Structures are given as C-alpha cells and as structure tokens.
C-alpha cells in the first residue's frame, strides 16, 4: 500500500512535529509512505475567501504531486474536505477525480482503511476532543449533535485505544472553535470569543490537553491559551496516537 503524505502548508511551516508524528504513525502501522517534495497548499484559503478561481495553480500542483498513489493521507480534516469537494484540473480531470476519491483524513484512514483495532500508544492525561467542523460535518468523522442518529466518533474510537488516556466529555460536543480560515482575522472579535468559549468548556471539565484532527483550529486555540496563560495545551491527534509506551 503506497500512501502519499499530504502535509498542509501551515503544518509544514509551523507544526512540523505533527507531520513527523503522522509519518511515523503510518509507518508504524505498516504503510509505505512517501512525502512528495514541492507540495504547497490545497487552495482552501483562497477558495473560502471567494477566490476559488485563483486556485488552479494549487490544484495543478496537487495533481502533479499526488497522482498515482493508492491513498493520500493528511493530518487535516479541513484540507482533505476541500480537496474532496473542490479539486478540479481540466486537463487531467480523471487524475483529479481519482485523488478526490482516494484522499483521507488521518483518523478516518486509520479506522476505515487500515481498520486499526489497537495502538501501541500511551498518554496518561485527561484529554478533550475538539471535533473540528469540516471533519465532523463535512467528512462525517463523528455523529453530529444536530442529527438524530446513532452515536460514533472515529477520532474518539482511536483515542480510546491509547493506554492511560482519559477522554473527558464536553458540554457542547461539536461547537465550532471560531477559526474559520480568514474568518479568524476578518471577524476577529467573534472568532476569539468562540475560541475562548471552546477552551472554557475544556477547562471546566479539567482537560489537560485539547486534541483534534485539525491543526488550524488547534493553532487558534493555542494562540488564545498562550496569551491568557491558561493551564492546558493543544496537541494534534497524530502526536497522541504516536506517543510511545
């Protein structure tokens, strides 16, 4: 199984440890992983701002780098959803379609493709799971609180496999954190307030760590936590699942 590793731009630049954990975790689980050099971004920052017409350069690069893999995996629900919904390349539409069908967010790749039932991981901490919206409502990584349906959570299921980890419950299971791409600067006041409230829910339930499937949300929450010097930290789910015994 040949897996193409897609590391979104802000993870590449600011959170390399998340990329490293993702790579190591996939290798640990027996995947042959390649990181195609020269990849940049999925194009979402432009598209969500109304500039989808400027994303053809990103789309073309994405097809250059990820055509031909059995699977493409990324530690970001948001970027994966963007590719699934919006990757088009007029000259190579078949390749683009193939990529759209083969790209997975890390936790769903673990539960649905690798069908992982146990992990050699240990993380003796109280952890809160922030269900990022694009993974949650776009990729259906977990049951959505608005819908009348059977409960499930793919990232939750994986976290339960980690020795010593105590998953705390939250008052609002899938409230948005307020990151929202350019929303975080264009609507600064509301964005920060949403983040503050999201953190407060975790603090109230004594989480030591906020984890999630999207670094973008975590980066926003971390920015607030650090400014307010609050007693908790953020970690991407890959870092926890890759924590060694």
């Amino acid at each position, binding site marked *: 199984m040949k897996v193409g590793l897609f*590391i979104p731009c802000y993870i*590449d*630049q*600011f959170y*390399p440890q*998340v*990329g*490293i954990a993702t790579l190591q975790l996939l290798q640990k689980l027996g995947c042959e992983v390649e990181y195609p050099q*020269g*990849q*940049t*971004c999925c*194009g979402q*920052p*432009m*598209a*969500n*701002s*109304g*500039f989808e*017409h*400027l994303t053809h*350069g*990103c789309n073309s*690069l994405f097809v250059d780098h990820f055509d031909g893999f059995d699977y493409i995996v990324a530690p970001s629900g948001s970027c994966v959803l963007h590719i699934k919904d919006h990757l088009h390349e007029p000259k190579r539409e078949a390749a683009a379609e193939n990529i759209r069908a083969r790209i997975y967010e890390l936790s769903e790749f673990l539960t649905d493709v690798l069908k992982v039932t146990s992990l050699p991981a240990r993380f003796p901490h109280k952890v809160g799971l922030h269900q990022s*919206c*694009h993974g*949650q*409502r776009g990729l259906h990584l977990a049951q*959505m*609180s*608005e*819908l*009348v*349906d059977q409960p499930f959570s793919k990232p939750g299921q994986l976290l339960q496999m980690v020795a010593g980890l105590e998953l705390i419950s939250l008052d*609002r299971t*899938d*409230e*948005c954190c*307020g*990151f*929202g791409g350019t*929303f*975080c*600067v*264009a*609507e*600064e*006041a*509301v964005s920060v*307030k*949403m*983040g503050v*409230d999201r953190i407060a829910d975790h603090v109230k339930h004594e989480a030591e760590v906020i984890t999630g499937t999207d670094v973008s949300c975590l980066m*926003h929450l*971390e*920015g*607030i936590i*650090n*400014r307010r010097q609050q007693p908790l930290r953020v970690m991407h789910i890959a870092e926890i699942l890759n924590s060694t015994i």
Partner: protein
Amino acid sequence: MNSHTTDHATLADKFNENEPRVNWHDETLWWVRKKRDRMAWSVSGWEKLREAASDIKRHVLGNLHDYLVQFEQQAIKNGAIVHWAADAAEHNKIVLEILQQHQVKRMVKSKSMLTEECHLNPHLEANGIDVIDTDLGERIVQLAKEPPSHIVLPCIHKKKEEIGELFHEHLGTPAGNADPQFLTAAARQHLRQEFLQADAAITGVNFAVAETGEMVVCTNEGNADMGAHLAKVHIACMGIEKIIPKRKHLGVFLRLLARSATGQPITTYSSHFRQPNPGQELHIVLVDNGRSRQLGREDFRNSLKCIRCGACMNTCPVYRRSGGHSYHTAVAGPIGSILAPNLDMKDFADLPFASTLCGSCSNVCPVKIDIHQQLYKWRQVIVQEGYATSGKKMSMKMMTSVLSSPATYRTAGKMGRWVLRAFPGMVNNRMNPWYKQREMPAPPKVSFSEWYAKNKKDEQQG
C-alpha cells in the same frame, strides 16, 4: 435596516465589548437549540420528516407558477381579494391604498417578516397611519425603536429589566418592575385596547394551501386571530414561496416548524384563514421582491424552501455571539446571509463571510437547505461581481502566487519563520488582527519538508 457604512465584523466587534452580555445571549439561544434537539429526538423518523419537507418544497419551487395560479383561483372563490406585488415598493403601495380606501388611521399587525423585509411600517407611518405590532416581542422592539433581532424571538437581545424600563416609559408600569408575568399582563391589557380600536389587521402567512386557497398563521399569542377577527379589513402579506400544494402537507410542516423554532411540539395557535367574515374584507398580497430572481439562481434556489423557523440562528455560533442586529438586514443569521445578497449584493456583500462554514445550520434546517454550501457559493459570486475589497484582492493574489510555486513557497516560508524568530515585532503588533488577542505560533527552525529531506538523506546514507 440597511447600513451602508458598517459591516457585520464591525457591528459584531461592538456587540463583543460587553462579554457577560454575549455569554447571556449565547447561552439563551443555546438553551433553545437544546430544546429543539430534545424535540427532534422525541419524534420517530425526524430525519425522514425533514427529507419529506424538503422534497415537498422542491416540488413547489419547480411548479411555483401553477400552484400560485391555483391558489389565487381558490382564494378568489373563497371571497378574498388577491394582489400581486413585484417588489417591496409595490407591496407597500398596495397595502397603503387598501388602508386609505377604508380611511384606516390605526391598525394592528401580527408578525410578518415579509413586512419587515419591505420596510412597511415606516412607509405607513410616513403616510399618517399608526401601526401597532401585536406580537409581544415585536411590540417591545417597536417601543424601543429597533428592528427585530431574530425572526422568531424578535427581542431575544433584550433583558427583562430593559423591557421593564420600556414598559414603564411607554405603558406606565411601575418603575423597576421587571417581573415577566406582570409585564406580560400589562402588555396584554395594552394590546387588547389596540385590538378593539384597530380598523385593519395585517398578518403574515406561514403556509398558503394551493388546493383550498386558505392560509395558515402560527402564533403563540393568538394575536393574529385577535387582529383578523376584530378588524373590518384583514390584509395577509406573503412571499410567493409560502405555497404548499395540499392541506395534508401541513401534517409535515406543522410538525417541524415549532419543534425546530422553539422546541415546542406545536405553536399554541395554528390559525386557518380561508374566507372573510361577513362584512369583512380579506386581502392577500402575494409578493415577489427578488424571489423569482433567486429561483433562477440554481445554486441559491433552495434558500426559498425556508419556513422561517430560526433554527439556523439558534445553532449558529457566530449569530449567538454577534447578535441579530449585526447582520443589518430583516432576516439575520445564516439564512439571512444567503437571502440578503439576492436583495442587494453590494449592501450585503459582507454577510456570506460572517460564518466559519461550520455547517451546523444545514443540519438543523427542517427543510434541509444547504445553507453553509450556499454561503461558500455566495462568496465566489460576490468576488466575481467585484464586491471584494481591494486589500483582500491584493492579499489573495499574493497568497496565490506564493502557494502556486513550490520554490516561492519554500523561500517565503523560510523567510517568514526567520522574520518571526528574528523580529517578532514585525508580526506581533496591533496591526495584525491575529495578535490582538492571540499569540503567534512559535516558529520552528526547520519546516516539515526540510526535516523530511534531511531525514530521508540520513536514512539512505545510514
């Protein structure tokens, strides 16, 4: 309340100056959302019911012309007088003419978001007609000279103490009395006088049944009935999308409406109006005001399925923390943000961006409108039509050029991280909206791609 000078972000920023109040607003609406959830879980086949409602509305929108003609024929047969208004101005003109014909000086109005959309009240008042809003929440915001901030809960932004003060000033209740039961009783006495004196009554319409020509109006206070039964003239104003084919379809929509809106099984009154009482005139004003245009926009057509329950507002994390007035349009929140740009793309160019695209709105919508996807699509249209600010255009073009070239991206990333390490003040200053209340991420020495290249080389050498 169109505002040409202020956008959602600025108004939301102001709303957030009082954090305890934001918390109160957020928690109040979240409580309504939770009530809605409990109701949804208590109805077996809830998701199928939403699907059915969505399908019926899709069918209506695909056959709107025929159903409107059928409705008109039936309504005329029932003795109603039917009017057609192409836009808000024509709607206001028709209503004014009816009132003038009957020398009406004072009239009562039950809740109608359409008349808010058309700005009917100021038009009538400018022509010497007093309009009394009879929905309690609407009466409160009317006394406060404010527009409603929510389509179902018009004064949800007001605290009971503020309502007590308003009533003291306008209705003569004792100063400092903010007991909800007492204030409601005072409002009831006051409104009763208005009902008895009114020469005409305007109501909105929740559902108009093509098969029978009847209209259904849902209220909790019975104020639509009080007005319509007592006045000589009843004017029902409705958007053309309010049609449903048959009476039996009410069984779908009435089960969804109040559960989605306030978490009640049903509104206290579901009043059916079919024919005028003896000696009374019943007028029905069918209003387009941009709806045909929206029907023609394939990507946005589904927004016309809306039954105005307000569930998308209650669940919206942005609405809860910015308040209805920050949307500066009659219908606030997520649904308003996909309806308003159709009315005026320039004035409301900011609204589709007042969202994180979290998708919760689409999930609670009882008629399954793809609200967050339409928000995304409106963003594309607004930019294409030239309503993006020049600063945004420039930054997007710069971002695109960096992200479309691996070499530029590598250099820019290296430079960016280096600048952050060497001169944190360049980024960490008040000009940077991220930094105002958030720290920047600590810049690592190497990027993932640099680490990978080195690691792979070491692996191969090792």
